[in-house]
């Protein structure tokens, strides 16, 4: 069974540009989460999508946005990039079936560098 996939693996942008990151969840998983891992700041929750709807967002400015498509894949958009947006962006998915461990499985990440 394929795991969570993310693209691209690396992305280099300059300040003020826009970045688009993509995530495909594990087959059968309908919930997708985005996290940011910036140096020195740990893992911070960005966005949660479930059945195409945004269910919750972390403490990030509105220039961080995203969407979930009918096939449950997801896109994270970061507008007006700032230097401090440089980080590893991780996508995770989990099943919404009742009960069970509900583990979030993580993709390999997209490393974004803003120059």
């Amino acid at each position, binding site marked *: 069974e394929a795991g969570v996939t993310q693209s691209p693996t690396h992305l280099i942008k300059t300040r003020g540009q826009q970045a688009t990151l993509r995530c495909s969840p594990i087959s059968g998983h309908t919930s997708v989460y985005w996290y940011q891992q910036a140096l020195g700041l740990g893992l*911070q929750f960005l966005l949660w999508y479930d059945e195409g709807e945004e269910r*919750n967002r972390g403490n990030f400015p509105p220039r961080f946005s995203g969407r979930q498509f009918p096939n449950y894949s997801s896109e994270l958009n970061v507008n007006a990039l700032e230097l401090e947006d440089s980080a590893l962006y*991780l996508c995770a998915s989990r099943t919404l079936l009742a009960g069970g461990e509900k583990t979030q*499985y*993580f993709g390999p990440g997209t490393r974004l560098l803003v120059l």
Partner: protein
Amino acid sequence: ELKVEQNPLFLSMQEGKNYTIYCNYSTTSDRLYWYRQDPGKSLESLFVLLSNGAVKQEGRLMASLDTKARLSTLHITAAVHDLSATYFCAVALNYGGSQGNLIFGKGTKLSVKP
């Protein structure tokens, strides 16, 4: 606000020694997770702990959960170099009756030296 605190943040161990990583969290949650991250890599799920008194073991790692104390521990037995990594605990946020996002501790960077 749910907070998750891990300690220590850095741990240098000799091979063959035992040690424990602690994870405290501030509010009730029905699931606690432990993940491992190797340098430059993503997070690998190690354990999910669902109830008070839960204990799970995999190789040289054993995790336990005390929901009354809001404390989880990750015990390392007879450490080997391959266990060198950063270990995160995470607690699931309850959102409208279903499991929401995870709140992570800052991670414990473990270095096992020969």
